[in-house]
């Protein structure tokens, strides 16, 4: 078949996909689809073809798009999306997942060439955001989005964009604080060196001068950079919590007080450098802890999945309404690839609903007229009309979402090691300090206070406060490198602490896509060609899969083709009558023997056999199963138990598998486990498990596309790293060990310091050396140890 081989060779000039047809060619450039071709035409019209010069095939495939954006002309919706608006111009920010290369950057910042009404575009490459300033008198939001769509950059507009949360542009402006701290630290160090190197008698004047300058430099440290610690210490005290911030705040205060005292009374050089160093390092630690990864968002919830608006038909006219306004009895129109936002009854059209988002089941289910279709399904194929039976707010999905599990605040999670220790640390520290004070008071008051303050200074748990963030962020970046994205550093500790693993089946341990289709029939090439020719006429996903499975073949002339909605297809080919479809369509008997999806084949009424579609298990299931000797493992599946046999290999224990589980029952199951004192890790897919994910101590969403949103999860695991899960668990444990050890180290430092302090003669130099030294040790130790552990686990 020369022709087909030729076909396979040509790739789309725009997106680089294989071209399966040859009907999209412009000036000897091949395109895979009309979409890609039209993008090229738009760009060439405005001579923006440099777009293609920066990278090969910079585009993203445009195969399935017949989006409609007319809802954007609705004022209320537009108002929700726009960041800023005055008499002439509007500013709007879009999230555009397609942004991926310098060509994107180049093109999206050149929109003005396509439409002069667009005045200014700025791309944030990592956030995949496009900020546009345009003249809304000349172009409205809808046209703007359509323009973007035309050039292949369709913004992802969701309900969440309309209901904007307050964007938190680091309120505590940490960076500035660090800058100030660093600046003062540097200068104070400079001015303190002379003291250490020793000033000759003649240079005493310098000493006092430097002292005063030091006080000057410590002021911003205490009153600007360090404020956060006082505030949080105070708040914690009010809530009767003793956290690490208390001794820190205490340390800072004492350091400053004593520095000022010593310099003013000319009794010493003070501890200005220790003070500045302390605050500087603490802030750096805080910064490291805050480190987040832009490339996935944990903050999106079900709203980011729902459309902003739906089209309803009112007395014959179709018009968009905001989702909020959608009411019971509305007759809505849902087109190909659109989500059904509310539970509704099918009134018109062939409904092929893809529930993969809700159930992980990738093969669309056909619904018959009058059936109730739950929200969250995605229509594939022609446009359908439905009547809303429940408002969005009460639909199956949103109810699930509004479950108390979601409203529960995060801090009920297990207490981190850090918090536990710091409580005792503080108590011990204070008792030692006061003990010393009382010990000295009768004999020597001066020395008593000297010792008291000295203790609070040297025992200031700087290194202690740093060990967790530095270890965790190191671990975090290693997980990140292995496509395992954790929400925050605390998750690592949870990962190490869990003892029970609950898994969802579909989409979690099974791959989301049909990857093995079995042909239970003996067909000759000629017959295969017949089936290919038949199916190639149908747009039904199963037909597509079959065609893909049979590979590129020559199409034969087809006559009398007919497709029975949701049942099958039939046609005369080469004088043979070929049928393909469901059991009741072919054998007009519905077989309940297996719940597997099958397509049966008859040629001239002769039953040839069937295609069976199976969901494959992710590779590495074996290693996961192997965990069962260290963890209790459970499987919760939404489907019937027809795969029980296959799954036995992974879950040998009886009572470890549960089928026909509704999202709610999954949630309850997790809850019950927790009530038995288990630390539960739930591994599930997207939305339907989100309840359980939230409920669990550690919810991991498995997905093949990290940009899919996975509400309620603490971590997102890329499907291709699924097999590494056991390694991740072990690595998390290593991390905790490292932290414990670094705590030990920093405590030893504190003890060393104390030995000086208790006697009341702590020289500024000792303090100034101990503090950075301990910090340096901790930072280098944690990062090195983590690196080493990762190497051991082959994660780097």
């Amino acid at each position, binding site marked *: 078949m020369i022709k087909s081989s030729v076909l396979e060779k040509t790739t789309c000039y725009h997106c680089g996909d294989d071209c399966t047809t040859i009907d999209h060619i412009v000036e000897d450039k091949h395109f895979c689809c009309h979409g890609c071709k039209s993008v090229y035409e738009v760009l060439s019209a405005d001579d923006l073809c440099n777009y293609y010069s920066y990278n090969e095939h910079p585009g993203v495939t445009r195969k399935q798009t017949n989006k409609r954006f007319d809802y954007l002309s609705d004022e209320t919706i537009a108002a929700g999306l726009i*960041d*800023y608006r*005055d008499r002439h*111009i509007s*500013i709007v920010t879009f999230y555009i997942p397609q942004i991926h290369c310098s060509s994107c950057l180049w093109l999206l910042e050149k929109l*003005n060439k396509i439409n*002069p009404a667009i*005045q*200014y575009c700025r791309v944030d490459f990592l956030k995949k955001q496009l900020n546009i*300033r345009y*003249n809304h008198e000349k172009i409205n939001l809808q046209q703007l989005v359509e323009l973007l769509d035309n050039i292949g950059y369709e913004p992802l507009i969701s309900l969440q964009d309309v209901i904007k949360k307050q964007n938190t*542009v680091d309120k505590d*402006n940490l960076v*500035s604080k660090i*800058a100030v701290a*660093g*600046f003062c630290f*540097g200068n104070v160090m*400079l001015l303190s*060196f*002379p003291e*250490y*190197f*020793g*000033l*000759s008698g*003649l*240079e005493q*004047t310098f000493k006092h001068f430097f002292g005063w300058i030091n006080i*000057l430099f410590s*002021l*911003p440290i205490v*009153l*600007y950079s360090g*404020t956060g610690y006082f505030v949080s210490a105070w708040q914690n005290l009010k809530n009767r919590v003793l956290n690490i911030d208390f001794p820190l705040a205490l340390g800072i205060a004492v350091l400053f007080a004593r520095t000022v005292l010593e310099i003013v009374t000319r009794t010493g050089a003070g501890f200005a450098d220790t003070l500045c160093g302390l605050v500087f390092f603490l802030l750096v630690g805080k910064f490291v802890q805050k480190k987040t990864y832009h490339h996935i968002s944990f903050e999106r919830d079900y709203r980011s999945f729902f459309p902003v608006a739906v089209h309803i038909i009112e007395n014959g006219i179709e018009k968009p309404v905001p989702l909020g306004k959608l009411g019971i009895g509305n007759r809505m129109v849902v087109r190909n690839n659109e989500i059904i936002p509310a539970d509704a009854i099918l009134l018109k059209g062939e409904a092929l609903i893809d529930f993969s988002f809700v159930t992980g089941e990738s093969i669309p289910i056909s619904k018959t007229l009058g059936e109730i279709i739950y929200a969250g399904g995605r229509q594939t194929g022609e446009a359908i009309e439905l009547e809303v039976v429940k408002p969005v707010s009460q639909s199956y999905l949103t109810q699930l979402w509004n479950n108390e599990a979601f409203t529960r605040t995060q801090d009920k999670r297990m207490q981190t090691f850090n918090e536990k220790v710091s409580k005792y640390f503080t108590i011990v520290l204070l008792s030692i300090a006061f003990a010393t004070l009382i010990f000295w008071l009768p004999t020597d008051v001066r020395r008593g206070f000297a010792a008291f303050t000295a203790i609070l200074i040297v025992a200031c748990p700087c290194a202690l406060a740093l060990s967790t963030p530095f270890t965790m962020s190191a671990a975090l970046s290693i997980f990140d490198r292995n496509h395992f994205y954790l929400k925050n550093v605390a998750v690592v500790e949870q990962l190490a602490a869990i003892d029970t693993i609950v898994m969802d089946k579909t989409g979690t341990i099974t791959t989301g896509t049909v990857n093995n289709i079995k042909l239970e029939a003996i067909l000759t090439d000629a017959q295969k060609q017949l089936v290919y020719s038949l199916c190639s006429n149908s747009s039904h996903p199963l037909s597509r899969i079959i065609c893909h499975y049979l590979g590129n073949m020559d199409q034969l002339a087809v006559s009398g083709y007919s497709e029975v909605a949701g049942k099958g297809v039939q046609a005369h080919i080469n004088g043979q009558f070929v049928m393909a479809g469901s059991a009741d369509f072919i054998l007009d008997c519905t077989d309940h023997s297996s719940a597997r999806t099958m397509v049966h084949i008859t040629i001239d009424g002769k039953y040839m056999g069937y295609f069976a579609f199976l969901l494959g298990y992710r590779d590495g299931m074996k290693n996961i199963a192997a965990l069962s000797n260290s963890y209790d493992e459970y499987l919760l599946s939404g489907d019937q138990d027809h795969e029980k046999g296959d799954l036995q290999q992974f879950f040998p224990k009886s009572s470890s598998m549960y089928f026909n589980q509704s999202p709610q029952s999954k949630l309850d199951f997790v809850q019950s486990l927790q009530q038995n004192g288990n630390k539960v890790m739930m591994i599930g897919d997207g939305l339907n498990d989100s309840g359980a994910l939230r409920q669990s101590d550690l919810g991991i969403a498995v997905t093949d596309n990290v940009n899919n949103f996975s509400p309620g999860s603490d971590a997102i695991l890329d499907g291709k790293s699924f097999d590494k899960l056991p390694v991740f668990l072990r690595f998390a444990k290593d991390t905790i060990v490292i932290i414990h050890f670094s705590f030990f180290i920093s405590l030893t430092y504190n003890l060393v310091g104390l030995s000086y302090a208790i006697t009341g003669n702590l020289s500024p130099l000792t303090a100034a050396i101990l503090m950075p030294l301990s910090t340096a040790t901790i930072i280098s130790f944690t990062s090195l140890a983590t690196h080493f552990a990762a190497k051991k686990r082959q994660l780097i």
Partner: protein
Amino acid sequence: MQPEKFYYDNKIVRDFGIATVLWGIIGMTVGLIAAIQLYHPGANMHNQYTTFGRIRPLHTNAVIFAFVGNAIFMGVYYSLQRLLKARMFSDALSKIHFWGWQLIIVSAVITLPLGLTTSHEYAELEWPIDIVITIIWVVFGINMFGTIFKRRERHLYVAIWFYIATFVTIAVLHIVNSFELPVSAFKSYMVYAGVQDALVQWWYGHNAVAFFLTTPYLGMMYYFLPKMANRPVYSYKLSILHFWALIFIYIWAGPHHLLYTTLPGWAQSLGVAFSIMLIAPSWGGMINGLLTLRGAWDKVRDDVILKFMVVALTAYGMATFEGPMLSLKQINSIAHFSDWIVAHVHVGALGWNGFLTFAVLYWLIPRIYKTELFSKKLASFHFWIGTLGIIFYAVPMYWAGFTQSLMLKEFTAEGMLKYPNFLETTLQILPMHVMRSVGGAMYLLGVIVMAYNLLKTAKQGSLVANEAAQAMPLEPIHTIARESAWHRRLERKPIQMMVAALFVILIGTFIELMPTLTISSNIPTIASVKPYTSLELQGRDLYIREGCSNCHSQTVRPFRSETERYGEYSKAGEFVYDHPFLWGSKRTGPDLARIGGKYGNAWHFNHLMDPRLMSPGSIMPEYEWLLTQNLDTTTTRAKINGMRMIGVPYAVGYENQANTDLDKQAKAIAADLAKDHIKVKSNKEVIAIIAYLQRLGMDIKANKSTKY
């Protein structure tokens, strides 16, 4: 709103480019001549204007301010326009800047051989030129900030930050180091004396290296390297971070040039500490640059321009690592005053500045001439000969420095100096000096080849004097709903606002008081140290004119090897009347701090007439002209007055009898010479310089005799 069409000014870039190449060749040629004189004194063509002492400053000034300077402006004017999407603020200013800068260089080329110098290294130019420099620098500043203000791209790319830092810091440095009191049209005295002057000078000297040879080049690296490799810099975050780190630390490292001098110990240690810290940000830059090429090493293999960049970055890494090492006291005690330092700076200069400049030229000239490079072969020849040149230069110099220092420090079993005669050590390293000049010649040859290559390139293309570009005008920030301006945040926090204000005010007022504080100096004074006589003062100025301090230091470090060789180590109090200080930074010849009274006048006379008479094999040039030229005594009065003004306690009215004093002392010396059958008029320059030499270190000796 329509996108604005505008034109990049390529002509000014081209002009600076030409200047770069031209001055490069001149400066390096002068360097070569100077290098040859270090083993063949005759190479000065027996002409005072081409003698080492006078052309060494010419060489440094030419390569630093002419070659590198023009290269910086070329790079800045090219990248700034493109990064800001705007033409330079004003073509007029650009032209003034260009021609002004060339004028400065020309005046340097004239004045330095004439011996008009302040003797402050890298700041030798006399006060009128200093003023011109200030003006032109301000012009450059206005032009740069003007462009920044009318930019069409909101974000200031990291390169621009480096340019800004360069401008601001150099401005401050230049002004502080130019506090000099003019006594005539082309003669001035530094306001500070001795140790203080030294400190200022090296605070300047070090930061000049930092902010003239480093930061602008880092900026250029961050613009041109990504362009050349056509890939974004390895980590933009890192580049920003290391910029701020670098500028905050660099300022403090100055004192490491004065280790073992009479600078207070803690100030020295300070310099050391901060020099060590410098490694981090410096290497941050180098690593960021090299990693930008990760995965593109195949490109490097067949792109000579990238080859140049790689060597440049490596050289930068080596120099910035070696620098802090050299500031360690132990290492410094060996390296300082020796050829090691010469090697160190040339690795930086030839490798980092030179090669990066060449890379930029090779990349930029074809672009603004809309053509291809004339010959890749010649370019890669340049690369290889240049690299070899660096090696042939650096290796012998490291070797020489090391050898000579160790010889000078070596003692015999009996505890005597192994090489009591300094000359022995010099003769030992002459072969290395020969090789060094060969290396230099190779490097120079490469540059000449480049000049030819670029000329041909320009010929085959045509200059796009005004390159058209388009960009949206920048809308005023307020139209974008921006919540957080820092001062607004401060206003919400009155305490912090107050603190910030207090902080700035205190520092400010404090700085106001500075100059008054500096007049009085609390340096331990030594009773026996007296101001120079008028003749000695004139002699000292001749010493400065001839650039003797380029080869002879005037400070004895507290090592046994030096106290044995030269005498008692130097005290801060000895230099209180030295405007400027003449410690020097290199010992091609022996230290002179204690030369006074060591030899007779006749010895000095003959030695100055022909050094090889007194010490065979010496590489010191012959100063015949000192014997023939008459001493200009018309300036004496002004000089005395000037000195008094800046704190030298000359009795009131001394200026009136200064010249009679001068004659008396001169005649005495002439008479003494006559005893040795040397006929010389007392009004010759040689008399004055002998007087000065004989005075050096005498005060402290007198001190000894009076058992103080």
